[in-house]
């Protein structure tokens, strides 16, 4: 985009600055819209599985429900508990929200359509997603209340546990792709399966990794069945208990932006990102744009998230920890050995 602004007669610095800012807006604003609609989809899918109707009053088919909720929340009063640590209490939702948005900087939506095409894109995602625990921990501590505090404790332990196995799973993908760059990883998947299928997931060594990645991303975003941090039946609303109005909405938006991020990561790392599923030109004169494939795949994973949410009961806390440390960690380590051994035998055989 820098070239475009340069062609309008700007100097390179100004063109770069304008391109970056407009790129940020082009990602953040549609993302917020997508989050609003995805909350609606989530509720609809959940309702359909429960044989309910879901939101159907505001707008046609209830499509405007999220905006009505947003407006309602916006008009409410922000209440800060008198015993709360005010600065951190207000900072926590902002951090959650910011971190959820910042990670999108390296996500490639199509070939070359990425805000920051950096070499260490995957590490950047890991770094940013490891920050998202702070929003929860800070809010839990600053609320100065029992339920949020328990929730913060649980969140800290849970997110650290699953970050470890996510890290190892990502290492497996990186071993195959040979790069940390997300666009590079997508390109490496072109024709990966039998020269036809553009996805890592059909690789027998990477398919279990995808399953584990999907489950870990459920845990990382604290979705059912791993929503121990906001378990309604035990902790009221967990770390969000003391929050109201926009500070509550920021948590909500950040959470769903994170879920979308995890879905898009699943798409990029295992399902070929913007590439069409098959590496054959079926209709020679017509190309479906890459971004359509990307959004379709991402949306499919979001549907799976909702599906899981409606069908699976919550884990017990010790089961959650066992799954993270005693099942996923050794398994992902084993697969690192298997995959690097396999690659040494085939691709890097001297």
């Amino acid at each position, binding site marked *: 985009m820098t070239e475009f602004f340069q062609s309008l007669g700007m100097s390179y610095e100004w063109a770069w600055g304008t391109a970056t800012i407009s790129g940020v807006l082009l990602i953040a604003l549609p993302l917020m819209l997508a989050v609003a609609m995805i909350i609606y989809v989530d509720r609809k899918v959940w309702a359909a599985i429960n044989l309910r109707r879901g939101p159907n009053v505001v707008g046609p088919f209830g499509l405007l429900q999220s905006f009505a909720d947003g407006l309602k929340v916006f008009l409410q009063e922000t209440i800060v508990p008198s015993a709360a640590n005010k600065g951190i209490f207000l900072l926590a939702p902002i951090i959650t929200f910011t971190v959820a948005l910042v990670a999108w900087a390296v996500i490639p939506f199509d070939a070359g359509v990425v805000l920051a095409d*950096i070499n*260490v894109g995957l590490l950047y995602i890991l770094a940013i997603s490891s*920050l998202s625990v702070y929003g929860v921990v800070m809010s839990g501590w600053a609320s100065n209340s029992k339920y949020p505090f328990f929730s913060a*404790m649980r969140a*800290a332990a849970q*997110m650290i546990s699953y970050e470890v196995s996510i890290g190892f799973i990502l290492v497996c993908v990186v071993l195959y792709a040979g790069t940390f760059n997300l666009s590079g990883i997508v390109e490496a998947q072109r024709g990966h399966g039998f020269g036809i299928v553009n996805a890592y997931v059909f690789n027998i060594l990477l398919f279990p990794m995808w399953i584990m990645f999907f489950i870990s991303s459920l845990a990382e975003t604290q979705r059912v069945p791993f929503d121990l941090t906001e378990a309604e039946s035990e902790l009221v609303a967990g770390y969000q208990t003391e929050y109201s109005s926009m500070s509550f909405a920021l948590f909500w938006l950040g959470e769903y932006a994170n879920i979308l991020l995890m879905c898009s990561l699943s798409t990029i790392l295992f399902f070929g990102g913007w590439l069409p599923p098959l590496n054959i030109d079926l209709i020679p004169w017509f190309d479906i744009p890459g971004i359509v494939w990307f959004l379709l795949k991402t949306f499919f994973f979001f549907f799976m998230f909702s599906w899981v949410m409606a069908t699976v009961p919550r884990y017990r806390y010790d089961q959650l920890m066992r799954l993270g440390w005693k099942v996923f960690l050794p398994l992902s380590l084993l697969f690192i050995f298997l995959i690097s051994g396999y690659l040494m035998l085939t691709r890097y055989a001297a």
Partner: protein
Amino acid sequence: MIQTFAFYLFAFFVIASGVFTITSRNPVHSVLWLILAFFNAAGLMVLVGAEFIAMLLVIVYVGAVAVLFLFVVMMLDIDFAELRGGFIKNFPLGLAIALVLLAELVLGIGAYRAGSLQLGVADGTSAGLAGESNTANIGVLLYSDYIFLFEAAGIILLVAMIGAIVLTYRERPDGARGHQNITKQNMRRPEDATIMTRPEIGKGVEL
């Protein structure tokens, strides 16, 4: 221009949050300032082109170590007055450590300025692959020239981990193993756990 601005921005925040880490009264605030310092230090590393190290700093220190710090500090019930009381007593020791660190820093920078010690040149080892990203360079150096040091570091960490596990492991006096058997729990069926009875009126159920 923008590099200079970014450098001073990050450097200012590192120093400012470092100062706040020391001076803030609440230990939780201290840890949060420390995290901000880590984060800005990562920004400085990106500026000098060490993006791999920067990301690792954020992942390891901000993402894991500082979370555990915060975790521990949050749960402590700290008497702030008592914490302040030790200041005069510990001041000379702290000053001595600070002076040692300062001297080492000056020495290090002086040696670097003198140019006698440059990485990968002084001892005749390779300086990595030219034209590769520094992630690849670090990998090549770690797994070729520094492989034994790298493995030694790995073994030290392994020993530390085993040590931590051994220290926290305790044998139950009744010989029971402390954890739950999930397979056994999953194998349990309603028939094993529940009984259906039809008690007569006025009589209880004997289990």
